[in-house]
């Protein structure tokens, strides 16, 4: 691995965005005003599944201050990232309660709200289905009659025509039936998870402007401007040059929730009708809960055959993910869930079926770790069930079969940079797994996780060296709180040899910042990190060439330190970058470095969410808990979390990604549950949906394991995406260890714990 001396990479540089944020100067989408701007509000479906018989907007249109009302009939376009199935507003029928049916544009929010009350919609209710397993059964109401003919992003998305299944992912190795026959024990369990809501403190918002010539501009708090641009251009059938997506300078949280088209879609719908006026739509908190996306509710059936000594022989996994009324990100969520569905273990015979299923509920999509929380909940809970049955130590059982370098993954790839074993060892050591005494009703548990990373997707960047020697980084990675702006600046400063203070990363704007697939999947440090590193190296080579004649040395003998180009052996023979530029170019000096990173792929792999992974997201966590036998309350004493960062570009922000993820995972474990009555969300508010507060967050010991990746910048890979994934099973395993009860349905609320304790006592 790189042995070079690093000055900035690997240090805990202060976040580049912190000062603006603590001073209240950071500008978010809600702060953006565009001249002539109108305000939009969305009328939403009151039924989970119904035919739209008639919509009467005439009274709303006549309200003073209303500039226009749009319904689905006015915007005959379809969008979707993986499957083209979603209208901008419901057409012909509504498929979930809360779906957009009409949008009003008015001079202010109050007028738009008032106008909504004047719209009359006549519905004819249709039978609805809410459970993902029921939805796959014959005779279930069909939510999309034409799923088989929808346009797909790639051939590896496999809807089953005539069903509610919008993707069926399969992975088979060996002979699973033979494996079960050879096993000493067979374990069969079903695990479920509810919908978790993203709960970014900033809601979705967008401003859309469509002019007479169908030039489309969107200001948004979207995580992936180029993906949005492509989706908009193809939906509206305009060239990409006609679409510009501008991301607000700051985005108030993401966790996967701000990808795709959310507020953008409804803002575009009304802007398509009311031309030449920018129209802003800010979602309410209630819309966040009812009409955006959440985490896929899941049912996972896991059947595992093992030998007496604990050797895994065969595993069959059936995963049902409820994606709601439209596919959204679901097909790829189910793909990732499937690829790692059996867990990060050597199992010779595997059969994995992962179904992404339409239901008549609010959509599910990308959410921190997607596919991981559902499957790790199953495979890590069952791991402890097996360990207990066989009388084996849970850590030992995992260590024996966890993937290491050189193993062939279930997907067929030979693994490299597999730091998971190290993560588990570090966790076990920190929590003194074998030695620390615990009190009465206290217990400990561990859980591992592996998850895929979207592969293969590219990232591009420009590094622009200014006349005064400062540096602008043009990169479409979106700063959503994860700290990518800081990481990007650190890598550029390191590679180019300039101080951190000289580097600034621009907010994404598809008119200026080059292509990037997305700010998702923990891909930015690896992909954009490589891209900006290449761009900085390119700029550096150009600067050295320019300095060569001035310093009378070969470019190979030159380098840049602290913003000065100098002869390597003689630091005093130096020129500031500004001088190098002005001596060559006079008053108009600049250097433009470029970088484009696209992973090298094995031949024959799909180029859209392939099974081969450029790297894996890996982590292990341990939990210590105490269970109150009288009330069923679970107190988390401590969470130990080790995740494989490859190389921590910024150790401080890296550890804080772990802390944040663990707390989100603990919420999923113990309390969070978006509740429904039929298709209606019952707790669409921070008063009733229990996001953990400062008083609820557990104590965490975060650890960044540095198992370097040969293709990562400085060995780095991603980390933030999945730091929430192992937390629920680690907690459940600790609860079992404490009081001997096994909860298989999240969340582990005190009522469930107490009921399980009672059942156990009765046995």
């Amino acid at each position: 691995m790189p042995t070079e001396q690093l000055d900035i990479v690997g240090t805990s540089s202060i976040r580049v965005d912190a000062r603006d944020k603590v001073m209240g100067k950071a500008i978010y989408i809600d702060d953006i005003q565009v001249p002539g701007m109108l305000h939009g509000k969305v009328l939403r479906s009151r039924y989970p599944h119904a035919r739209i018989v008639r919509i009467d907007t005439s009274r709303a249109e006549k309200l003073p201050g209303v500039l226009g009302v749009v319904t689905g009939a006015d915007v005959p376009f379809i969008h979707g990232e993986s499957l083209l199935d979603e209208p901008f507003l419901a057409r012909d029928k509504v498929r979930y309660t809360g779906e957009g049916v009409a949008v009003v544009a008015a001079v202010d929010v109050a007028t738009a709200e008032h106008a909504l009350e004047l719209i009359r919609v006549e519905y004819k209710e249709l039978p609805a289905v809410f459970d993902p397993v029921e939805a796959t059964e014959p005779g279930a109401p069909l939510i999309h009659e034409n799923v088989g003919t929808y346009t797909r992003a790639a051939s590896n998305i496999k809807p089953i025509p005539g069903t509610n299944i919008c993707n069926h992912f399969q992975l088979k190795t060996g002979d699973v039936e033979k494996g079960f026959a050879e096993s000493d024990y067979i374990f069969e369990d079903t695990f479920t998870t509810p919908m978790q809501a993203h709960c970014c403190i900033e809601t979705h918002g967008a401003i859309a402007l469509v002019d007479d010539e169908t030039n489309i501009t969107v200001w948004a708090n979207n995580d992936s401007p180029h993906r949005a641009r492509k989706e908009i251009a193809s939906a509206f059938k305009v060239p990409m040059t006609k679409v510009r997506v501008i991301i607000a300078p700051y985005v108030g949280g993401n966790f996967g929730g701000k990808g795709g088209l959310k507020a953008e879609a409804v803002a575009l719908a009304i802007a398509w009708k009311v031309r030449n006026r920018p129209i802003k739509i800010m979602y309410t908190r209630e819309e966040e809960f009812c009409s955006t996306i959440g985490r896929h509710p899941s049912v996972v059936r896991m059947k595992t055959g093992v030998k007496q000594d604990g050797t895994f022989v065969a595993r069959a996994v059936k995963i049902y993910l409820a994606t709601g009324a439209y596919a959204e990100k679901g097909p790829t969520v189910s793909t990732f869930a499937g690829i790692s569905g059996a867990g990060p273990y050597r199992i010779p015979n595997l059969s994995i079926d992962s179904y992404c299923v339409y239901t008549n509920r609010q959509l599910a999509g990308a959410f921190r770790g997607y596919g991981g929380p559902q499957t790790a909940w199953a495979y890590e809970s069952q791991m402890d069930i097996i360990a207990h049955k066989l009388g084996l130590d849970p850590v030992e059982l995992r260590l024996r079969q966890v993937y290491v370098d050189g193993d062939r993954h279930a997907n067929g790839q030979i693994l490299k940079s597999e730091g998971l074993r190290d993560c588990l060892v570090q966790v076990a050591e920190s929590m003194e797994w074998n030695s620390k005494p615990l009190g009465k009703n206290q217990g400990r548990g561990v859980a591992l996780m592996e998850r895929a990373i979207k592969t293969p997707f590219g990232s591009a960047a420009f590094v622009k060296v200014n006349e005064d020697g400062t540096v602008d980084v043009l990169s479409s990675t979106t700063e959503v709180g994860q700290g990518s702006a800081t990481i990007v600046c650190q890598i550029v400063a390191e590679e180019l040899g300039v101080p951190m203070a000289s580097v600034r990363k621009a907010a994404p704007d598809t008119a200026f910042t080059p292509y990037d697939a997305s700010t998702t999947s923990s891909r930015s440090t690896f992909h954009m990190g490589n891209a900006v590193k290449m761009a900085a190296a390119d700029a550096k080579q150009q600067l050295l060439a320019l300095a060569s004649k001035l310093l009378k040395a070969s470019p190979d003998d030159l380098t840049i330190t602290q913003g000065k180009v100098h002869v390597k052996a003689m630091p005093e023979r130096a020129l500031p970058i500004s001088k190098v530029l002005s001596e060559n170019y006079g008053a108009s000096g600049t250097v433009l470095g470029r970088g484009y990173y696209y992973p090298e792929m094995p031949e024959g792999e799909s180029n859209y969410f392939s099974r081969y992974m450029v790297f894996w997201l890996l982590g292990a966590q341990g939990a210590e808990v105490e269970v109150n036998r009288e009330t069923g309350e679970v107190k988390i004493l401590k969470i130990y979390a080790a995740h494989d960062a490859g190389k921590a570009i910024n150790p401080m922000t890296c550890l804080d990604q772990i802390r944040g993820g663990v707390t989100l995972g603990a919420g999923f474990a113990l309390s969070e549950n978006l509740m429904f009555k039929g298709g209606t969300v019952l707790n669409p508010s921070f008063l009733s949906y229990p996001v953990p507060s400062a008083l609820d967050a557990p104590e965490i010991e975060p650890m960044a394991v540095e198992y370097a990746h040969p293709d990562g910048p400085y060995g780095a890979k991603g980390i933030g995406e999945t730091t929430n994934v192992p937390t629920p099973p680690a907690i459940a395993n600790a609860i079992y260890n404490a009081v001997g009860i096994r909860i298989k349905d999240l969340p582990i609320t005190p009522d469930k714990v107490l009921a399980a304790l009672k059942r156990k006592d009765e046995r």
Partner: protein
Amino acid sequence: MTLPKFDYAEPKSLRQASALLRQQRGKAMLIAGGTDLLQALKNRLKTPALLVDLKNIPRLDHISYSEKTGLQIGAMVSLRQLANSAVIKEKYPMLVEAALAVGTAQLQAMGTVGGNLCQDSLCQFRDRSPMARLMLEPCLKLGGHVCHAVSGSNKCWANYSGDLAPALLALHARVTIADSTEKKKIPLSKLYSDDGKRPTRLRAGQILTVIHVPPPAPHSGSAYLKLRLRKTIDYALLGVALYLSMEDGDAVCKDIALALTGVGKAPFLVKEAEQLKGKQVGDAEIAQVAEAAFKQAHPLSNIGGLTPAYRKEMVRVYVRKAFGVALESAGQDA
């Protein structure tokens, strides 16, 4: 949601305030801290033509105490002010516990004692925006004909979840109700109806002005315990308030009151607890009271993320725990 349009008045006397309320014949509402009200206004659950602000009425934000008459708390005293009051901390620690159990530091700073007592009852089938309310048939509390909490019911079962009410009930509080002509003092328990649609019995023009709490007896103890999923923000899924005093020098109970919140349409006193007066308080007696409280609790699945059965079961546990804490603070071995 934006706020609906309304007029706003800041009367300088109770008489003026009451007159404004009466003139508007039910179309005016009082605003105290505003935390409960503004939420209801934004959701169009209430659409008053006039808001009558109590903030400029003299002395409503005062706290006074004397050994003889006990404690007087003005209705506009904020929960934060109550929790910071030296005399309340010393004499009525349960009131501080209850005030600090309300919402968050911000809601405590804004919310008032009177507003907390008069807060509306809750139901997740109703407390939604106009748009989200369309997703369910209009319920009784909205003027409709169905109850989503208890199907087939012709009564509204919205849940009362205030934290101060049980504590003040257990402390034998009385409240002054004023209108434009008279003031009267009633036991706090008489303030509450058993109607989910309107949890208090206040009529148009009536204003709750002062809360009176008798001085604590010697050898007294108390506890307020609240069940909720998070340690903050959440409304009570159950609240148990217990006050008791003991005879000098022995373990005989002299006075006792137990009140519950969060498990019914109104906060209520568990009368059976009074049977402990003059008796030794042992495990059997506590279990008996806990059983009586258990029977009177009617939690429903119209609030929160825990099953009604669990919340009801927790009544026994929390009452027992409350006895432990209260006896200990009364100087008794629990």
